[in-house]
Structures are given as C-alpha cells and as structure tokens.
C-alpha cells in the first residue's frame, strides 16, 4: 500500500480510517443483533468492502450524490447519514432516516446526498444517471456515483444506465464492487467476462480495475474519474476487486466459498492493510488508534441504544407519505 499520486493530510487519512472502522463495527453489531433475532426482516452486511465506499466517497462533497444497493449501510455511513438514524431505520423505528418505513434495504437520506439503497438489482444505476443529468442541466460541477455489485452488471438496467450516461456525457461514476459472488453464485458462473470493467468499452467509456481493498488506490482512481465527471468528460466504470467477508444476507455463513479463498482475502482485510500503512508511516499510534476505536464503539453503542429506545412508527404513518 502506498500513497501514490494522492495527497491526503494525516488528518484526512485518519478520518478515512475512522470511517472504515465505523462501518466495520457498525456491521459487526448488525450481524450480531440479527443473529440474536433482534433485527426484523433481512440485512446484507458489507464487512471487507469498506475501502470501496470510503475510498470513493472521500472524494465527494455533500452536494455530490450516491446511489447504492441493499448492501448499503457502508455507503450510507460513509456519505454521512448519522449512525443512529441508520440503526434506528434498521430496527424499523420512527427515528430512522426513513421513519422506519424503508428498513435495511432502503437506507436513504437526501439531506446528505444519499439518494437511496435500491433493493432491486441494478435499479439505482439509471437513477444516478438522472442525478448526473440534473447537475449537467444546472451547470453544476457535482458528480453522481452509482455503487453496485458484480452480479448487477448482468441486468438490463446496468446496460441502459451506463449507456445513457455515456451518450449524454453525464457526470456519473459507476463503481462496481466485485466481491466475487452474487448471492451464492460465484461471479464466473453467471458472467461472461473476467473483469466487469471490460464492459466499459461497450459504452465508449474508460473502464478501470482497482484493488478494492486498498483504500488509497480506490481513492486515487476514483478521484480521477470524479474529476473527469466534474470536468464534463463523461462517465467512467471502475471495478473494485474486493471480498464479502460474511455471507450474502441474514445468517448465511457463506459455506459455498472455498476456505482458502476466504483465508486469503481475510489476510487482505482492508482495515488491517490501511491500519498497517498508517502505523508503519507513523501516522497512527496505538493510543490514537485505541481512542478512535473506543470512540467509534461508543458511537455504535449509542446508535444501538437510540434505536432500542425509539418508538415504532404510529398508525398514522401507515398511509402517509404515499406521495410525499
């Protein structure tokens, strides 16, 4: 890991690390709570993929926007939704970012530019293109980022959304998190190309493969693409090679994955890699790390308490918000 072509201050680097830690600890908590049957419905956690959301979103301001998927807690936290609002939403409480009406698969907070978690595979992609269209329309140099999985690159909405953004030269970056699996199916079984980024050429745009567990690489590459988008050069497709450390959803243990594969990827844990980098470059020491860790733990515990203490939505919520 190195800081090639990237100039981030120590403060910024530490803040990125803290974001990744927040996502990890948040997701670990969700995973445990779900296993204890304290969380209703389903959840899709993202441990192991923190470098993607944090690496990309660290390039964005509040005016820039993202769309993500049912596996969207990480992006939502990285984009700045308050952890307690995410947690309360996952519990279906009225204090959640969607008043408990959306849940884990639909985390949304327009006030920070998190346009939504889309639970239909691929559905967020054209929506991000539309947000990009609005920036171009208004001559704003903001960018829209669509996050989605490797499996999503097989669905029509991906094709149409990327092509649309390319034809209209919209300020959109398409970030594919290739975590090697779509649900229980290994990517290679259901996809006709080795790299999702290879599909970029079908739309006349750049496709870039990046190590998705190296947050600095993700930052660097996505910075280039986002800058291009802002500069009116149109979209880019970035493929981040990463790994879903847990199963697909709920309590799936992910037994269909070879042990060796899991082991190898655990060794390349993005937080471990980035932590090593920060420590070995003297940017983070044990005590600052511990302080950070306990701060983050506290944030997550507080979010949990907040969710627990919050009321469920009342009956008048049932038929409200159908239109707005």
């Amino acid at each position: 890991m190195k800081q090639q072509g990237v100039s981030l201050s120590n403060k910024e680097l530490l803040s990125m690390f803290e974001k990744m830690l927040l996502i990890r600890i948040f997701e670990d908590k969700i995973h445990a709570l779900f296993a204890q049957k304290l969380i209703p419905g389903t959840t899709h956690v993202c441990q192991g993929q923190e470098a993607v959301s944090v690496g990309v979103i660290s390039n964005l301001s509040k005016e820039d926007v993202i769309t993500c998927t049912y596996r969207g807690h990480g992006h939502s936290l990285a984009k700045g939704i308050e952890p307690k609002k995410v947690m309360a939403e996952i519990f279906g409480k009225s204090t959640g970012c969607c008043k408990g009406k959306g849940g884990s698969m639909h985390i949304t907070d327009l006030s920070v530019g998190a346009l939504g978690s889309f639970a239909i595979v691929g559905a967020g992609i054209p929506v991000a293109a539309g947000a990009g269209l609005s920036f171009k329309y208004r001559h704003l140099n903001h960018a829209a980022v669509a996050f989605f999985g490797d499996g999503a690159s097989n669905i029509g909405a991906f094709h149409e959304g990327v092509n649309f953004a390319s034809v209209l030269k919209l300020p959109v970056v398409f970030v594919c998190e290739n975590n090697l699996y779509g649900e229980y199916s290994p990517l290679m079984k259901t996809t006709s190309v080795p790299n999702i980024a290879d599909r970029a050429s079908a739309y006349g745009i750049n496709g870039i493969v990046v190590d998705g567990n190296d947050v600095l690489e993700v930052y660097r590459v996505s910075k280039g693409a986002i800058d291009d988008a802002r500069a009116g050069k149109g979209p880019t497709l970035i493929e981040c090679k990463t790994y879903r450390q847990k199963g697909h959803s709920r309590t799936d243990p992910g037994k269909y994955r070879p042990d060796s594969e899991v082991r190898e990827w655990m060794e390349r844990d993005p937080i471990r890699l980035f932590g090593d980098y920060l420590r070995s470059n003297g940017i983070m020491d044990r005590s600052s790390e511990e302080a950070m860790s306990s701060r983050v733990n506290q944030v997550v515990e507080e979010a949990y308490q907040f969710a627990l203490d919050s009321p469920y939505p009342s009956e008048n919520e049932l038929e409200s918000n159908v239109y707005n």
Partner: protein
Amino acid sequence: MSSKVMSTININYRSAIRFALREEMKRDDRVFLLGEDIADAGGVFKVTEGLLSEFGPSRVIDTPISETAIVGAALGSALMGLTPIAEIMFSDFTAVAMDQIANQVAKYSYMSGGQAHVGVVIRAVSGGGISFSAQHSQSLEAWFAHTPGLISIMPSNPRDAKGLLKSAIRCGRPVMFFEHKALYPMEGLVPESEELIPIGKSEIRKEGEDLTLVGASSTVATCLEAASRLESNGIHSEVIDLRTLSPLDSKTILGSVEKTGRLIVVEEDVGFCGWGAEIAAQAADKSLYYLKSPVKRVSAPYAPIPFSPALEKMYMPSAEKVYAAAKLLVQGS
C-alpha cells in the same frame, strides 16, 4: 363544465398537450422533456414538435431506446429538484420500464419516509382502434392504478388534456398521463387563458336520472354517443368522465349512482381485474341499497388486442354495446 364566458381557441388534443408542455416549460425552467425521437423528430405522434427549437437540446432530450434508463433518469433528476416529463412512445412499452415505474418511482416517497417530492410525469400513449396490434394498442391503466404512489390521468378531450397535464406537471408527484392515440386529432375549445384542471375530480358531462355511464379517455365519447341514442328512446343517462383514474373521485361517481340506481362502466381496457371492476366494487359496497339493477361493465374481452380491423372492431367497446346494455338494464329487454 362551467358556462361562464371565456375566450377560447379551437385546437386538437395533440396541440393541447403541446401547449401545456410549452406553457409549463416557459413558466418553470426546471421542467424538461426526455424520450425517444421527441426532439429532432418532434415525437412519433408529433406532440413535441417545435419544442426543441424553442427550448433547445438541454430541455428537450432525445434518448437511446432505453425506457428503463429514461424513467430511472427521470426519477434521479426529480430527486434533485427537477421536473422531468418522460415520454413512453406507446404505453405498452411501460412493461420494459415497469420496475422503475412501479418499484422505484411509485415507492420512493413512501420508502424514504416522505423525504422527496417525486415530480416525475410519464406521458404514455395508449389505446386501440387503429390496428396497431397487441403490443401497441393496450390500455394498461389498471396496472398503474393498482400501484400505490402513482397518479393516473386519462383525459378525454383537448381542454382536459391541457389543464390536467399542467396540473400534473405542478403537483410534485409521480403521474402516469395516458394520451389516447386515437384522440390526437380530436378538436375542441380550450380557454386561451391558463387553466389548471384539478387532479382527482371527475366531471359530469351530461346529467340524467335513469342510469349512470362512467367512461374515461376514449370511452367518454362512446358514452355520450350511447347517451344521445338512449335519450331518443326516453332514457336519461348521466355521463361521468373519470378524468383521473387514481385517485378516484368516488364521491361524484357514487353520488350519481345513488341518484340513478343504475351503473354501467365503459372501459377500453380488458374487463377482468380492470378499473371498471373497482368502480363496480365500490358501488356494491357503498351504494348497494340504491342499486336497482345489476352493475354492468362494457369492456374488452379476455384476449389481447387483435390486429385484424375486423376483429379489433368487435374487440373495442362501442356506443352500440353500451346502448344495448343500457336498454336492457332500464327496460329489462
């Protein structure tokens, strides 16, 4: 329709829609159009003709043949505060964008706890009668009426088309605006001054005491024609133009049914699980004790729309069918 004097012009349904688009685009520069062949070509039905030269390519956008992207992009831009008006060339093609329409656009507001006004207007060209076969002639309004979060509008004449489209553009909610292709050449008087026709209000086109005919879009004319033939037979029917299918103006419809005691719903759509069933069901619930005779529906049979003009003619509702059904209801034979 109020009869107070107003200055009007005679234009067709197509132009009325174009006028509404133009006025709203002039009024509010957040309003823009996107769709296939709507800019350079002015639309397959020429509805958007001239708007490209007036508003330029950033506000009248030709897109690839990608209805999913069109509707999805409309949603994304609406979330950022714009008011996109997407054209779906034939409403049958809503099927290729059904996820974006029914799962994303329709549900966004609710799932997000009311965070956004989703001001997406989808203009979709519907209806049969010109031998365009089963994939270019459907009336699919019931699918959308059945999907909470979507407003469905079905104008029957130029004035309504204009006034309702303007309201749709301003309402900040997802609207399916169904334009009937066979009505495009229909002429009618439209006020010269701005008129906003309220969403969710039906209109009584003709008063009568003997039975209620409910139509929408193309079938309003069918009802009126049947009504005038019934009139010569001494049967006085009341004709209601739905205007908006969802939200439904139950008050006006059931009020009329309670007055006349008889109801025939006339829809171009397939009857089975169509919107006529909803109206009949509401009558059977709320107005049962007023009903003097069975509630009838004149709708398309349970089959796709046939191409052959000979078959299509039998397939469509007609004034004759309505007339026959009405006579049977009122006179018992």
